[in-house]
């Protein structure tokens, strides 16, 4: 049987706080009838204000949702409420041998659609005209190269005139727009960020951009992995299906943590994994439109046997999830082994030596105490101290960390980098993971 999820995990699927509240009210048995679970799915009828109850179903693997309610929120409060009810215990939603017809039809439709998609993709790959796509790629490379050269000149202009002379407002936006035109969104994003960079940090950002644009200018001379890193950072993307067609790494991946960030266009979920056999770190990304939760749901602390395909690069981290072998199960050792602050920082240093643009690298810190000092939050193990990266976490999350620690050493997973440590997950005294995102 599918392992039940924690309330926190279910709530993380809700698109916004209002939906969490609304779902919380539907998390009791009262509005539900004919609820059941089986075939990796969950279903029930939810009484609303109308005379016909809504039909709500959740496919737990992906997860995917279906509901007959008119809400544009996705997943809707009924789906999240049903998951909450199910998460509350086995007596709440009884296992059933066979789902009702309306659920079976939906599930069958989904697996049919997935099969169709795979067929289409194969057909597409076979149909593609290799000559035309080679030409397209060459054209884009030339545009990006021109953009990168332009950027180098702009940066050099800046240090010739002096960074103490601020550029007129909007100047960087204009340069960013040129980078977008040059089909280099990675450069554009870094340029846009310059507008908010404090003066004393400007030279470092200039230098790293200069290095990146210069590296693209001579990308043909770089080792293959480093060239891939440069291309990714400049803004070339790799198709997930293409990656999965290549080499994959099968392992039992422990979910170390996840964090959602949102801007007005996109919700981004990051899920960090570590291979039990290979010890490799991996980062999965999933995206959702505003108002929709990203469709990747992996509970922190669980172990998932699966194939991962890593994006190529000098220091591969980002990966896509391929075939899963079974459902996530509890990890045999709940708390991962960790490093001292000095070791974690050295690990980041090693990674930076391979990919100089890395801002941070995943790390588990062992036995650190969070301390609030006049210089902000610090993590110390009694020998060395790392600052918590400023602005990386909301105050509420930092207080949650302080509360979980209560002044005692804790194991902490996060991103360790040159600007400090960004906590993602802490393990409490009962060895349960607490998400700090």
């Amino acid at each position: 049987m599918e392992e039940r999820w924690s309330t926190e995990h279910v709530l993380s699927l809700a698109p916004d706080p209002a939906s969490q509240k609304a779902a919380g009210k539907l998390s009791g048995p009262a509005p539900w009838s004919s609820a059941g679970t089986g075939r990796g799915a969950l279903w029930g009828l939810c009484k609303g204000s109308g005379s016909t109850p809504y039909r709500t179903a959740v496919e737990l693997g992906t997860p995917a949702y279906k509901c007959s309610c008119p809400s544009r929120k996705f997943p809707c409060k009924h789906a999240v409420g049903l998951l909450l009810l199910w998460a509350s215990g086995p007596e709440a939603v009884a296992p059933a041998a066979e789902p009702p017809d309306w659920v079976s039809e939906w599930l069958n439709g989904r697996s049919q659609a997935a099969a169709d998609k795979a067929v289409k993709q194969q057909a597409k790959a076979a149909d593609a005209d290799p000559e035309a796509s080679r030409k397209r790629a060459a054209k884009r490379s030339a545009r990006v190269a021109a953009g990168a050269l332009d950027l180098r000149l702009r940066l050099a202009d800046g240090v010739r005139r002096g960074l103490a002379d601020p550029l007129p407002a909007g100047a960087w936006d204009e340069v960013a727009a040129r980078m977008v035109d040059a089909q280099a969104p990675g450069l554009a994003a870094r340029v846009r960020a310059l507008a908010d960079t404090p003066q004393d940090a400007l030279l470092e950002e200039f230098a790293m951009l200069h290095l990146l644009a210069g590296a693209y200018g001579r990308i043909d001379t770089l080792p293959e992995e480093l060239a891939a890193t440069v291309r990714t950072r400049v803004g070339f993307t790799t198709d997930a299906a293409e990656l999965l067609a290549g080499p994959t790494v099968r392992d039992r991946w422990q979910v170390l943590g996840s964090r959602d960030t949102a801007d007005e266009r996109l919700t981004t979920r990051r899920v960090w994994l570590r291979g039990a056999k290979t010890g490799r770190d991996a980062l999965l990304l999933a995206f959702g439109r505003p108002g929709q939760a990203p469709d990747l749901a992996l509970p922190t602390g669980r172990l998932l046997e699966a194939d991962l395909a890593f994006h190529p690069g000098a220091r591969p981290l980002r990966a896509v999830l391929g075939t899963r072998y079974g459902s996530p199960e509890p990890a045999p050792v709940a708390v991962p082994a960790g490093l001292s602050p000095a070791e974690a920082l050295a690990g980041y240093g090693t990674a930076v030596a391979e990919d100089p643009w890395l801002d941070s690298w995943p790390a588990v810190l062992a036995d650190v105490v969070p301390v609030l000092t006049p210089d902000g939050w610090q993590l110390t193990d009694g020998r060395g101290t790392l600052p918590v990266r400023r602005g990386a976490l909301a105050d509420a999350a930092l207080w949650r960390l302080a509360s979980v620690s209560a002044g005692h050493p804790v194991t902490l997973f996060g991103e360790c980098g040159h600007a400090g440590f960004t906590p993602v997950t802490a393990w409490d005294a009962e060895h349960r993971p607490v998400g700090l995102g």
Partner: protein
Amino acid sequence: MTPVTGDQWADLQGAALLGTDRRPLPEPGSPLAASVDRTEPATALLDLAALAAVRRRAGALPAPAVDTPAPAPDDTRPALPELAARRLAVLLGTRGGHGSTANLAELLPQWLAVARAHGYRLPPALVPALLDAARARSELRADAVALAGPLGRWLAPQNPDWRYVTRTATDPDGLDRPGELLWQEGLFAERVTHLTGLRRTDPAAGLALLASTWATERAEDRVLFLDALQDGLSGADEEFLEAALGDRSKNVRATAAELLSTLPGSALAARMADRARAVVRHDGGRLHITPPTACDAAMQRDGIPVKSPTGRGERAWWFGEVAAAAPLTVWTADTGLTPEQLLAVPTVDADGDGGGAEWAEDLREAWARAAVRQQNADWARALLGAPPRPGRESRTPGAPAKLLAVLSPAERASWTAAFVQTHGLGDAFQLLGACATPWTPPLSTAVVAALKRAAELGSYPWSHSGVLGMTERALAPETAPAVEALAADTSPDTAWADTFTRLAGTLRFRQAMLGELTAG
């Protein structure tokens, strides 16, 4: 973190700030830097900076250890059951943490009170959200601070938002009782809290503490400190209170008098009893009323104001004050009648012109005040009268909710249930508020039936919004099936159907919530 040294970063930074047009390029500091092409100074500066930046990032070292505070004391209470912890997370809305929907916010106080009564320890990850919630809602503070326990008191001094925690009284047993120092140097609220706590455990010590600084306290503080003596009030406090009758502040005098009047056997109570006997005489099956003709210095010293704040006639005002401050035992002991019998005795004006029925109302009013002040259940019961029955109109004068509060919870509930059956919910808000939660099954049934009648009569649910809000908090969970039946019977897509569906949902939620807390 400690950046690597010897990388000329400051020189590079200086040149970049002023510009390579004005500043020379720094000399290379390493063999790698020496290999940089220096033909174009701006490009060379960026190359050098890139080398140095990557070197800095790759070579950064941790800062030395910082001092760590002493950890929070251990909390030996049993852990909150897992399901209850999840429920609390939902109630607090830890994810997002924005404004709450009405009924979840209504249920949080109940959850906290029940969890506190069970003496659970909360999962630490939820404690900050709870402290934040109680910061915004002061009615949650006592339970929140008690539940947060040693961890909460350890966290609070670190976050200015949680300063209230140290000022909130939690346990009468005092886990970390502040002492003499707090009394001498604490904030006013902390001192009141401390005094109240001390009065509950050791009234004599509390009195001694207050007496030690009494002369130097400000008048407005003296009033509130005196109020704190209500806890553990006894004959031992009389001397102090008698002295306070001579206080410079009128409010202090009035408060001292009120406390003394509730102290059976006090000299003030005896003086008031004498005055009461002088104004009311029981004779020949009547109560003869002679209102006082003056408010002399002694009466004023005993807390009777010369003038009515609402502008009542002087003699009627003095009469009411005397009758309300006299020990209720005077009336029963002197006449040998029960409160019920006394309430039935007609009043006459002692001046003998046959009038005086209007005194009956003043006397009832005074007895009602006395019953509340002296917490006398026999009198409160008599004044409330028999629970109203259908078809028999009977109203209680004064403030029935206050009288009701004097009775035992069971009596309160059954009286209110009878009231609701007869009069509906229109005037029941305060009475229901005086009943203990959750309501008893009979009271709950009466309220559900009254709601049903209101729906049938076609009134709007929002005209009962006050009672409905209370109902969500207080209705007995056993009533859920009845409310669900009501929701099913009401024509769909109407405001009442929504109201009943919501109410049923809330009841189920509460039932589950309370069940989880007892399951541990």
